[in-house]
């Protein structure tokens, strides 16, 4: 479902005289349906960068990124927009929302965009919020006022509210304790069981060992200069 082949990426920083910083070369990986693959490597080695190239918010200089058979690299915006709407979910480390929009609506929004009826969408959103232990009295409030851990769980509820065939998870269990971590790991196991292809970044080694089938060390993709 995810096929990354021969991908290279560098950043050009114009306010430093156009310095070119190579960050990746010849990156390759495959994630099959029902499989959870971990990206590993030290902080700064390019795990999130690789994930963003699959999500499509980072461009690539060479190679190919295919999601469900669709080429993401160099694709027209509408191709990627459709892929994100229908096929690929992403739990980033940041929750970006319109201020003052209730949490329930924030979680329901991907379903509304897919054309699901508002009542159905909100019922499913409510189920997801309950699954990640967000108390019902918070559902009518904007998540911008929530704690870091609560925001993270709202982000996860939103990322699992639709059964996307592909999931990208950037530190889904970071800043979560006991019961909440367990709730998130169960969601990941559930997504695997229904056949989702999952690519994840987990600093939490216990979590990684439990849900991931194998790991890909991104240090193997470091460009020679930075290696």
């Amino acid at each position, binding site marked *: 479902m995810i096929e990354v082949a021969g991908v290279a990426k560098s950043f050009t920083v114009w306010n430093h005289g*156009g310095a070119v910083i190579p960050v990746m070369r010849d990156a390759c990986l495959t994630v099959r349906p029902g499989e959870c693959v971990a990206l590993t490597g030290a902080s700064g080695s390019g795990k999130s960068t690789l994930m963003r190239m699959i999500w499509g918010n980072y461009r690539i200089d060479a190679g190919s990124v295919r999601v469900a058979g669709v080429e993401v690299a160099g694709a027209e915006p509408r191709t990627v927009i459709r892929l994100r709407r229908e096929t690929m979910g992403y739990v980033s480390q940041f929750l970006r929302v*319109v201020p003052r929009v209730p949490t329930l609506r924030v979680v329901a929004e991907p379903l509304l965009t897919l054309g699901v009826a508002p009542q159905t969408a909100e019922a499913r959103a409510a189920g997801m919020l309950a699954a990640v232990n967000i108390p019902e009295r918070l559902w009518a409030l904007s998540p911008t006022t929530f704690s870091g851990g609560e925001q993270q769980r709202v982000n996860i509820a939103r990322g699992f509210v639709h059964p996307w065939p592909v999931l990208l998870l950037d530190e889904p269990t970071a800043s979560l304790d006991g019961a909440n971590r367990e709730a998130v790991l169960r969601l990941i196991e559930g997504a695997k069981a229904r056949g989702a292809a999952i690519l994840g970044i987990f600093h939490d080694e216990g979590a990684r060992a439990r849900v991931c089938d194998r790991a890909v060390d991104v240090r193997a993709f470091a460009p020679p200069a930075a290696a």
Partner: protein
Amino acid sequence: MTADTPLLSVRGISKRYGARTGCADVSFDLWPSEVMGIVGESGSGKSTLLNCLAGHLAPDTGAILYDTRAEGPRDLVTMAEPERRMLARTDLAFVHQNPRDGLRMGVSAGGNVGERLMATGARHYGRIRAAAIDWLGRVEIAADRVDDPPRAFSGGMQQRLQLARNLVTGPRLVFMDEPTGGLDVSVQARLLDLLRGLVRQMGLSAVIVTHDLAVVRLLADRLMVMQGGRVVESGLTDQVLDDPAHPYTQLLVSSVLQV
């Protein structure tokens, strides 16, 4: 969802003011239900471009092909004036930064909304009033304000009224010039939420000019960055903002104050 014809196909639009460049050789396709943001500093040509697209300014060169319901793609630049004005009253809409430019300040709120309906041939007073009240509700203005003039409204309410007036005819394409520009941040958030909902429910396409990168991140699927009248970078909104390639875009993104 996979329409094969862009709703709007802009080809090589240029506009000069004497020796000065307004915008130069701008081309893009806008697809149904897409929201595109145009960012750039004052003088970058973004408002000139928007005004050319909306027919307020005549471009010197180029074509603006709009996929009309009846006849498919037609060039708005060469279209006869009466036909273009009919489109502008029905299928197209323009939301000004200053509600005063888009509303009739001496006419009641209901009259402002009803007027656009009447311009498209509606004549039945009861139905026009009912549609106006319905639309005031959709933009969160209480029905008991229907007879008040916009003068009596706050800035945020005026801007929502301008939206109602524009959307009552069920347009397919909306042009917006800094729609959240003059508003307090809390009022801005409400308008953004409202806009997102309307875009989704009505399947609207929109071109939004703004200098506010936070607004485009939340509202636009795609982004075009203009400098000196030219498009210097374009792509998915998060692609342009998270991985800016052009020196000017990098400067723009790195200049935003963090809160």
